[in-house]
Every structure is written in structure tokens, then in C-alpha cells.
């Protein structure tokens, strides 16, 4: 094989096959790899996606790893130039892809244990890849508890999917919104208000959490109150992963490169870093 013209900055083409609106601003995109191969990612990893002429941006992979299926999903909030351009695409359109990049949730560690998944806002998107990967092997895990917190009911995403999960009995689902509207009948308050509502076998539970930057320190505080140790806590952190190769410097958390050392970190490994949480 000739490696002469290899450059890690060159994306490969993938094709948009399905687009599903999840809320006013969030859409799920399903892509198919043009090379005919599965993406071969691990839950928690991300890809760098290009709309040529507009730019490239990192997105968490939302679908679980698929062995024989060449599709994968991301879910995107329309907020900047690239996400705006993505939303304008229709099935059949192509985008450029680099990755998957970064670390992943250590699923093998979770085997035989209870797992608490804490999803704040768009945090459910990357956690979905972990959640559905585990559900495919449901017998291998103990209890699975999912906490979902959203700012207001209008912004909830994957509403039917989460309702189905709750109904299936495979996952215990707790949901809350910060700012309820007239129709909301569920819990009200930030995501930490869900913690007193659930009994956890602290010594036997792993936590995976993704949410807005402000969320982590409070949720970690709640985990501590429940008696969980740092090495039972896994977080995925957002930074500006521009090159995905640990070179461009934008995603640094102290000396860590989020794009290669993260985005998924065991809390033990980042506790000492002032810029992490």
C-alpha cells in the first residue's frame, strides 16, 4: 500500500441517508460510509465532520457500535456555521468525515455492575451510544438507571425513545426539566434533584455523565454523597477539538488533549486538573 499521499487531515466522503427532527433546533442525521465499511467506533468517541466550503466541526457519535452496518448517527443542535449548513442538507448529500477519534466509555469495566447514566441537555446524544450498546448485551449488566435533565419540555429530545426505554423495563428512567410549561407533569428542577429519588448500591455502581460544563461539579457532588469513589465516575468533556490529533492546541485541559486523552475521562485522572470541571 502506498502511504505517500496519506495525510491525517483528509476527510473521506459519507452520505446522508436520513434526517429526523428531534426538537426546534436539534436534528438527528444518519450517514452511510461511502467506503462500505462500518465506522468501527467505540461508545463515547467523536468524528470530525466537514461541510466543504463552510468548515469542519467535532460531533459525538450517537449510535452504538455496529458490526455489519455501515450507518452511524449524530444529533446536532443548529447553532453555528457548520451545524447550520448540516441542517440545510437533504438525504443523498455528502459530507466529509475524519475519525472516529478519542477515548471511549470502558464498557468492559461496567460488566456485572449497576450503571447510572446522567444526561444533561444534549448529553443524551453521546450517552446513547453507550446506552444502546449495553442494551444489546442487557444480561451482562446489573441495574441500568438513566437520568435525563432538560431546560424546558420543548427542548426534550428522543422523547419517544426514552419513553419506550422506560416502558421496556430494561432501564429505570428519571426525568426532570428546569423550567416547566403548563403541560409538564413530571419532576421539576435541575438534574441533581433526581438523586434523592433513587437508591443506588454505591459500591457496585459506575456512573457515566455528559452535560453542559456547569453540570459536572454538582452531579459529581451528588455521586460523592451517595458514596461513590472517583474511579467509578466517567465523564465526557466538551472542548474545541479542531484537528483531532493532539496538535492544534484548542482542546487542552491543562496538559491533556481532549481529542486524544479524552473526551471520556475517568474522574480519577482529571480530578487534579484545575481546568477540567
Amino acid at each position, binding site marked *: 500500500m502506498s502511504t505517500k499521499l496519506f495525510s491525517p487531515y483528509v476527510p473521506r466522503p459519507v452520505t446522508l441517508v436520513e434526517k429526523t427532527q428531534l426538537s426546534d433546533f436539534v436534528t438527528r442525521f444518519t450517514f452511510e460510509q461511502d467506503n462500505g465499511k462500518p465506522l468501527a467506533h467505540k461508545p463515547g468517541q467523536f468524528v470530525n465532520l466537514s461541510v*466543504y466550503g463552510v468548515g469542519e466541526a467535532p460531533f459525538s457519535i450517537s449510535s452504538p457500535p455496529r458490526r455489519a452496518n455501515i450507518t452511524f448517527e449524530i444529533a446536532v443542535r443548529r447553532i453555528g456555521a457548520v451545524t447550520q449548513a448540516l441542517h440545510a442538507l437533504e438525504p443523498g448529500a455528502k459530507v466529509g468525515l475524519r475519525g472516529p477519534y478519542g477515548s471511549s466509555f470502558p464498557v468492559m469495566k461496567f460488566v456485572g455492575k449497576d450503571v447510572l447514566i446522567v444526561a444533561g441537555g444534549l448529553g443524551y446524544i453521546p450517552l446513547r451510544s453507550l446506552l444502546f450498546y449495553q442494551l444489546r448485551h442487557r444480561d451482562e449488566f446489573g441495574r441500568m438507571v438513566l437520568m435525563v435533565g432538560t431546560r424546558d419540555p420543548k427542548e426534550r429530545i428522543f422523547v419517544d425513545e426514552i419513553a419506550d426505554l422506560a416502558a421496556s423495563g430494561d432501564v429505570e428512567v428519571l426525568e426532570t426539566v428546569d423550567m416547566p410549561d403548563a403541560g409538564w407533569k413530571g419532576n421539576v428542577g435541575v438534574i441533581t434533584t433526581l438523586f434523592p429519588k433513587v437508591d443506588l448500591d454505591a459500591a457496585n455502581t459506575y456512573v457515566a455523565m455528559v452535560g453542559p460544563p456547569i453540570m459536572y461539579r454538582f452531579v459529581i457532588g451528588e455521586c460523592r454523597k451517595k458514596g461513590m469513589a472517583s474511579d467509578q465516575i466517567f465523564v465526557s468533556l466538551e472542548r474545541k477539538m479542531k484537528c483531532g490529533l493532539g*496538535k492544534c492546541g484548542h482542546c487542552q485541559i491543562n496538559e491533556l488533549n481532549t481529542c486524544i486523552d479524552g473526551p471520556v475521562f475517568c474522574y480519577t485522572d482529571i480530578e487534579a486538573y484545575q481546568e477540567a470541571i
Partner: protein
Amino acid sequence: MTTYTVYKEQLPELFETWSRQYALYVPGKLREGFYDLVPWKKGQEIAWEFDVAYNSPKRFLLPPKEALITFNRETYEAAPVFEAPPQILFGVHPYDVKAINQLDQLLESGSPDQNYVRRRDATVIMAFEPLTVSPPAFWASVGAASVAHGYDLYWTKIGPASFTVEVGSAKGEELLQAAGTVLPSTPGDKEGARRAKARILAKARRNGLRYNWEETPRLLSKCWDSPLWRRYSQMCLACGSCNLVCPTCYCFDIREEADDALKKGVRTRYWDGCMLESFAKVAGNHNFRPKAQDRYRHRYFRKGKYIYDKIGELGCVGCGRCVRACTAGIANPLKVFNELWEETAHEY
């Protein structure tokens, strides 16, 4: 390896020969007190006395603007762009060679940056022992007064019209002999080179860290909450000048442009700087280093600790360029590290 002695009258022919195959850059005087590596042309006067090239040599290996890929918006095909013109950098001071050695390690590690690697392969580095020291420089105190490798030839001026040239690579030796015979140095010439190095080292040592540079990471790990960061950074203009002139800063941004017909385009990387306000900003305008203090501290931690933890060397080679470039007068690794040292001296 062998050391040769070369005389000034041999230089024009050597330069002439090299310039036929390479883009040749030599130290030139721009105006009083300002020097830079400039393209060589016949009759170009060499500024042997230059204290520092105000631009660092990183621009030859990692240009301020460099195309990475071309893309086609219709087929969604993309191809790498590699540009690596053969070039000779004549007159690189050892601290800058050290900076290049660092870039080599950082950009080649993990998934190697192919654009950098190719440019580096096409570049011949001819180091030159400094004859003067830039006033804010402190390279002698951060282990950057000499380099063991990273150069193809190492030139030391031992007399008004003579140089010793240590060979660092086969390619260097070949280039040295490209315009006729050069003779191996006599023991006396070698002694002359040793004395020239000692002389400049003595001058350079007048300005320096008040402690062993290897203590810097340990020093910084105690100083995250020091009031110094705010004291200096409150004057920061967030202009990124310190990043631009730094020989070891290599952070970059990636942007792209399509042609008029929106069919094809180029994705280009540009130098970026961690002191710029938007450096750590993500979608939705959340900024992970919103305050000048956060950014200023990050830069010094990167130079003094993070790079050290990766490769065992300071990320600052003591060239003093940022000190001269900073409009607010706050970029000064020597002052910062020394003051932090004073602040924490009672803990030792």
C-alpha cells in the same frame, strides 16, 4: 563527526552553489537592531553580529498560512496538499535549533503531521554560534545554549574571516564540499571554536533564571493560584504577539475557502494563539478560558510544565522574542518564573 575550517572568501561560491538547488536564507539586517533570516542574493551582506532573528524559524517549517487539503464540493473528494520546497536556513542560533527539535518531537508524535514532516525533511539547518546576546534573552539558563543534534552543519566564527564547521549530517557534509575542497580543522581552530563558545556563554549568563530550570514544572505546580497571573494579565491586550514570535508555539486554526463557482476549494491552516480571546471557545459561545488571566497562565504553564511533562524540556528556549514583541510589557518568562520562585522561596 569531522570539523572543517572555512574561510570567508569561500562563502560566496558556496552560497551561489547552494542557491541553485535550494531557497537559501541568511541573517540580514533590516534596520538598526532588527535582524531576520532573509533570502540570499548575490552581494547580500551577512549580519554575523545579529542577536536574534525577530521572526522565529518556525515559519519555514510551519508557515503562517499553509494549505492542507483541496476539496471538491460536488464529488466530495478531497486530496492532501504537500508543499516542501528544498531550503537551507543558514545562521540558526542554537536556541532556535532547540526549538525546532521540540517541534519535531511534538508534531511527529502520535499521528505525524505529514505537512510538517515533509517540510522538515526538505530543510537543511546550518546552525551558527551567536556573537551577541539579545538584551532580554536568557537561553543560557534554560539549557538552550547548545544542541547535540538537529543541525546539518554548525558554524562558529573563530576569527575575522574564518569559521569552524561541525558536521551534523551526511547531507550537510556534502553541501559543504559542493564548491571545492574544504580542509579539516586544525587543533588550534578547534580550540578557537571552544573559546568562541565560552565567550558568548559568559555573556549570555548575565541574564538568567535564579534557579535550576529543571525546577520549573515543580515551581509552577505550586503557583496555580498565585496573584502574579492577575497582576500581569490585567494589562494583557490579548493580541497574541507573544504566540506569533515564539519559536515553540505551534497551535493552529483551520479555515477554508471555496472558489467563485462554489465547486472547489482549499482548507488552510493559520497560526493561532492561546492568548486570543476566542481560542478555547466552543459552539454556543461557551469559553473555557474566558479571562485574560486564564489564558496568560495557560501559556506559562504550557511553556514551563506541560511541554516539560511530555518531552523533558522547557517549552521556552529563552530567546526573549516575546519580551520584545509584547506591547503591554507583560510577556516575560524570565521575570515570571523568577518572581514565582521568589514568591515561593520560603517553601524550599
